[in-house]
């Protein structure tokens, strides 16, 4: 049943800010985003929060709730004690714009550096054929709603701003893995995964998997398989020999899109 929820919401911008106390009436079945909306409608009309679908499908309302990266629309208030103060802050890995809104353009810049899907030509009848078992692996990764919580929690960039230059982050390892495992793709993206995406910086501490609201096994199914593929390509003398002597495992190297290379 309804009660008064105590909240601390970070308000401010790049020049500074603070946790501000609010008390807001909430109802049974509500989520953190409902409480934020009620603050907007009745107490602070200019409280900035990014959101869209409010159903966990678009990945807009990413914030940190009691220090944990979460979607505000999927965090039910029933997961807290009634007297507990709920603290909401913006994502702490990206530059803050205002209040709970951060500048996530880093992710869109990285997206531009991923070489696009390069399919084999269509067969004569115009219909590509793929088996369900082969598309399922990629489908898991394509469940990604780009909430960027995995990027936010990843200590490689969360704790080391300078690594943003050389590291693409879990969301984009997912993309590399998806393309590497795509039954129709004709490119070899392993060298790029190492050199461009910086997969070697990942020390597989699995926080990305822990926070994924879609339950994607980012580490086990995408990052580690990509690391193993990079090993095939760059570190394993046996597979290296196989490639040189038996001309196996030879696909054209993917290139960073030209328009975006600079």
């Amino acid at each position, binding site marked *: 049943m309804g009660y008064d929820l105590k909240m601390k919401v970070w308000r401010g*911008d790049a020049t500074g800010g603070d946790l501000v106390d609010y008390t807001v009436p909430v*109802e*049974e*079945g*509500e*989520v953190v985003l*409902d409480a934020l909306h009620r603050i*907007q*409608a009745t107490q*602070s*009309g*200019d*409280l*900035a*929060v*990014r*959101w*869209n*679908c*409010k*159903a*966990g*499908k*678009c*990945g*807009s309302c990413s914030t940190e709730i009691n220090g944990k990266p979460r979607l505000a629309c*999927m965090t*039910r208030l029933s997961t807290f004690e009634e007297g507990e103060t709920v603290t909401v802050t913006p994502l702490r890995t990206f530059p803050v*714009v*205002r209040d709970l*809104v951060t*500048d996530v353009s880093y992710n*869109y810049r990285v*997206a*531009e550096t991923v070489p*696009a*899907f390069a*399919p084999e030509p*269509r067969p004569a009848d*115009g*219909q*590509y*054929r*793929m*088996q*369900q078992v082969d*598309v399922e692996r*990629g*489908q898991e990764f*394509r*469940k*990604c*709603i*780009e909430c960027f919580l995995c990027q936010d929690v990843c200590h490689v960039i969360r704790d080391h701003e300078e690594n943003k230059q050389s590291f693409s982050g879990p969301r984009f390892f997912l993309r590399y893995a998806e*393309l590497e495992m*795509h039954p129709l793709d004709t490119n070899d993206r392993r060298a790029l995964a190492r050199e461009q995406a910086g997969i070697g910086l990942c020390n597989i501490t699995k926080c990305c998997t822990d926070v994924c609201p879609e*339950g994607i096994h980012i580490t086990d199914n995408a990052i580690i398989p990509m690391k193993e593929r990079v090993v095939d390509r760059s570190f394993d003398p046996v597979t290296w020999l196989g490639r040189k002597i038996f001309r196996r495992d030879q696909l054209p190297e993917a290139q960073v*899109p030209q*328009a*975006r290379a600079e």
Partner: protein
Amino acid sequence: MADIERHSFDVLVVGAGGAGLRAAIAAHDAGAKVGIVCKSLLGKAHTVMAEGGIAAAMANVWKEDNWKVHFRDTMRGGKMLNHWRMAQLHAQEAPDRVRELEEWGALFDRTPDGLISQRDFGGHRYARLAHVGDRTGLELIRTLQQRAVALGIEVFMEATITRLLKDGDRIAGAFGYWRESGRFVAFEAPSVVLATGGIGKSYKVTSNSWEYTGDGHALALEAGASLVNMEFVQFHPTGMVWPPSVKGILVTESVRGDGGVLRNSEGRRFMFDYIPEFFKAETADSEEEADRWYEDKTNNRRPPELLPRDEVARAINAEVKAGRGSPHGGVFLDIASRRTPEYIRRRLPSMYHQFKELADVDITAEPMEVGPTCHYVMGGVAVDPDTGESAVQGLYAAGEVAGGMHGANRLGGNSLSDLLVFGRRTGLNAAYAAARLKQRPAISEDDVRAASEHALAPFGIEGGENPYTVQHDLQEVMHNLVGIIRTAGEMEQALTDLASLRERITRLSVEGHRQYNPGWHLALDLRNMLRVSECIARAALERTESRGGHTRDDFPATDDSWGKINLHCRLDGEAVGVTHEPLPQMPDDLRELFN
């Protein structure tokens, strides 16, 4: 106004959902310099919410399927009020548009021989929806987004267009603001494609996100275009009804396509009591036949749960009114007793997740509670079917913001294919038209100044109305008075209420400053919501019959004479006017399909 940020494009696309992205890709392919402006981040548009699939007669599952069958289903679903040419192009071109997505990386579910799998949906004769589990919209938008990024198309994220700019009678560009900084930006473009989606945020219970404030509808009206079929608003029969905070969130029609049935509080499959004459011949009249249909479509007729959405929504509404509803005011949607938990989790993963997370309901073990929710507006900018151009030269519309394609009611799955087919067509034609121009139109400094003053108005008012309160009141009016069942008296009341709301929005005031200020954004969006609401109410009052997404309690029958008429909304000064125009008539070879 020399200090305003300016950009110049051949084609400016407003909106980055399926239609906007597809239009931008097409315009780029046609050689145009393209810019996309979108209210949210790229990839967050409402298209991600589409669940079931993309309707296309690919005949991968049923060889009997072809574009003519799809065309016929679409027209019948739209109660024959669709623009026949749009429905024809849509049915003919949808399969190619789906295959194209695959070339750009989409991973659809497969048939055993490796082709794109297709699923059953309401109103479609054959299993026709290409799908990816129940997150097809996400797949579609991600595929188009990645394609647009690969092509290097420029995207202006979190920017809102507030005005279209004209040079004489034709489009010259658009004016808007960056949400992040509150600064203004002017675009000069001879072709502008509206792909702004729908209007659902004017209703209290809706499956639509905050972006759906009818921006494109209102921009087009103000630029001089007309809106067609605005009285037809689709209430999706199955939205969540509990808990209150998620009321309205969509429960995909695939639940019924994959075997789910509707029951009332007495446990009865009540849809058998609501089969209209129009669909009797092709709908099963016993539970046994309906259940056999999933396996054998040739010798059995469709279950009534898969009637077009308007029929199902009305039936649910009637059951609840008759006191046979579920505890939270809906009815029961049951798939748990009809399919195995593994099947449900594999076919409907997001539904499983959504109910588990938001309502603590395990849909593999217990029924869902569902009720109608405002989902889609069939009406929109009247456009030329082949090019997507509106009555205003240089102004195009595609997707939900365009009207005509779906007539009085849209079939599930036809919206994603609509986005692709007409997104591409308008993008190409917008680019061709820009290339044909001998002299580029210019935007006037006076218009830019007027637009910026207009946008800043809410900051100049102290102690005025709270935009959130006004929005709430608007939603109450539309929900209660112009909702799923309508009467003349209520709609007249709605028009009076809307007039007073129109007066109130001139006195909105917002606190804080221009940087990422949602109060201000809402204040600007409210103007659009109100204009569109007025169109809906006026057109709905005018049409004295019931048809598709428009149900009149005082005129419950469908009237053949109304079947030849489209209602068009236009702006005359500040007033919204409605005119009758003849429905375009289809040629005889197509007409024969209905005999």
